[in-house]
């Protein structure tokens, strides 16, 4: 309470200023040098161009008679955002190893605003990635719905998703504390998450035990939400998907805010 009194202005607007400033920092870095993000686009591009094209020849793989390449485009998009955000903690550890993180936390900005800002920064990277994949998908003729509201919705989902997993990554970073271990755990998490989701094949094709995994896999909800906006236009499940995503993002960001102090101690 006292803090608002001393600084004037509302706590919320200061919180937002700080979080957006951290995200701005990321955007500026991307503007200076985006090589890394372009390199990271290669893998999803291959999924789309090779995997997608090859399996596109098999009819009936995707439900509802939609071509397979359309089916996996949202899956590939979600996967690439997952990769970017799950490794985001490595950047945090790197900033910790220098004094950058310490310095950020020595400003009057609330610790949680720095965490939210970092999560948003992962969202900024996610959006960059999403644009590249979008463009690529359109170039190779994937038939996506381009309603402005839907596209906006997809970007919001991308940002939330990136925030959720970047926060998870920051929590992991606070536990593991070294870059090598973060690399290891990142590798260990991403592939199972990817394969145990509806990203590249429908859940109905999975063995029963894997279907259960897919139900609790957040990636499934993200892909689901994206598919409904980009392909089917069927919004029946959208509120549930978004709610699940919002909730897990909120929980993850909160845990990360608490966990972050372990990283600088």
């Amino acid at each position, binding site marked *: 309470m*006292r803090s608002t009194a001393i600084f004037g202005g509302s706590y919320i607007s200061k919180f937002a*200023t700080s979080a957006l*400033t951290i995200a*701005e920092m990321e955007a500026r870095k991307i503007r200076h*040098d985006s090589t890394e993000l372009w390199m990271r686009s290669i893998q999803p591009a291959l999924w789309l161009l090779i995997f997608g094209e090859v399996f596109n020849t098999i009819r009936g793989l995707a439900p509802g008679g939609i071509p397979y390449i359309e089916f996996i485009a949202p899956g590939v998009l979600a996967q690439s955002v997952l990769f970017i955000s799950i490794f985001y903690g490595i950047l945090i550890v790197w900033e910790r190893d220098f004094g950058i993180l310490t310095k950020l936390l*020595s400003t009057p*900005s609330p610790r949680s605003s720095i965490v939210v800002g970092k999560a948003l920064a992962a969202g900024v990277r996610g959006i960059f990635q999403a644009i590249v994949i979008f463009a690529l998908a359109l170039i190779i003729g994937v038939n996506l719905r381009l309603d402005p509201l839907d596209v906006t919705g997809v970007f919001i989902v991308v940002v939330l998703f990136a925030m959720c997993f970047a926060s998870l990554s920051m929590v992991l970073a606070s536990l593991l504390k070294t870059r090598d271990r973060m690399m290891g755990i990142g590798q260990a998490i991403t592939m199972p998450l990817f394969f145990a989701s509806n990203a590249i094949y429908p859940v109905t094709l999975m063995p029963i035990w894997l279907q259960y995994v897919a139900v609790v896999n957040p990636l499934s909800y993200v892909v689901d939400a994206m598919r409904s906006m980009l392909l089917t236009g069927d919004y029946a499940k959208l509120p549930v998907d978004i709610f699940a995503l919002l909730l897990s993002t909120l929980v993850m960001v909160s845990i990360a805010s608490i966990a972050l*102090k372990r990283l600088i*101690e």
Partner: protein
Amino acid sequence: MNAIEVSELSKTYGQEIKAVDNISFTVDEGEVFGLLGPNGAGKTTTIKIITTLIKPSSGLVSVFGLDVLRYPQEVRQCLGYVPQAVSVDGDLSAYENLLIFSKLFYVGKRERDERIKFALDYMDLSQRADDLVKHFSGGMMRRLEIAQALVNRPRVLILDEPSIGLDPGSKKQMWKYIQKLNEEFKVTVLITTHDMMEADELCERIAIMESGKISVIGNPRDLKRSVGGEILTVKLSTNSVPSSLSARPTAVLGSLSIPPELGSIVSQEEDTLKIVTENGERAIPRIMDYFERLGYAVESVSLNRPTLDDVFMKYGKTSLERVGVYGEARTQRRAIVRHSR
């Protein structure tokens, strides 16, 4: 008013490691205060508690009367902090680094540009404002870090080992900036260092810290004086013994004495005398004169001044190894050699 007040502060990591062990000190407004100690002394831990980055295990710390535990944000608002490790972002330009921090310090939009420009000018970085920081030299990065702390117009500037990894030239330059800030803007400075020269050059008062404890606090001059005066080692030439004594070759020089205003002889071994005096530099010509008038030829004179090293030897744990009152080891040595005629 005290800028910083630390009272009975302790910090224990885990069960065992007492990084800071019941220390107390105050930093007055406007002074340059140094925490001097070797690696692992607990300096960084102390700084991190003051900057509210970590919580103390026990004890009270306040900055301008604000308790760090109760008002962490307000405390951080009046501090400028330069951490031990590099804390500027290499992937941003110098200008951007300052811009981001002025925003995180909630510097108003109208003042922002002016302050950034001032800080860059002040630290002589205007020319490189738009260059990526990863291409900067170590000294320039340190200057940028200070500039970064300045956009906030801090009342206290806290620098953790600011000269670590800098070449002697950049080190001296940085000292000058710190002194200038302190003089021109009355910024209170708290600095940690393991470099005796740095503490001596910059600090009005220092606290000597080791193994989590502060053993002594004082101004460098007084501390050095407390170790003992300056010591002159005078070597006389044996083959120029005055004729009156040449009949007794065994007791070559005999027992010598000097007038008290020149100092006092604390030891004599054969032809080598150790003389303690208040001001060695001024005593040298007079002592040489004195002996030469008596007919001795002075072969060499060397001056040992106590340094903070000696102070450290005396008050730090390592004082156990101290040899004699005058701390013979590790003293700054200036030899003035003059051969007899």
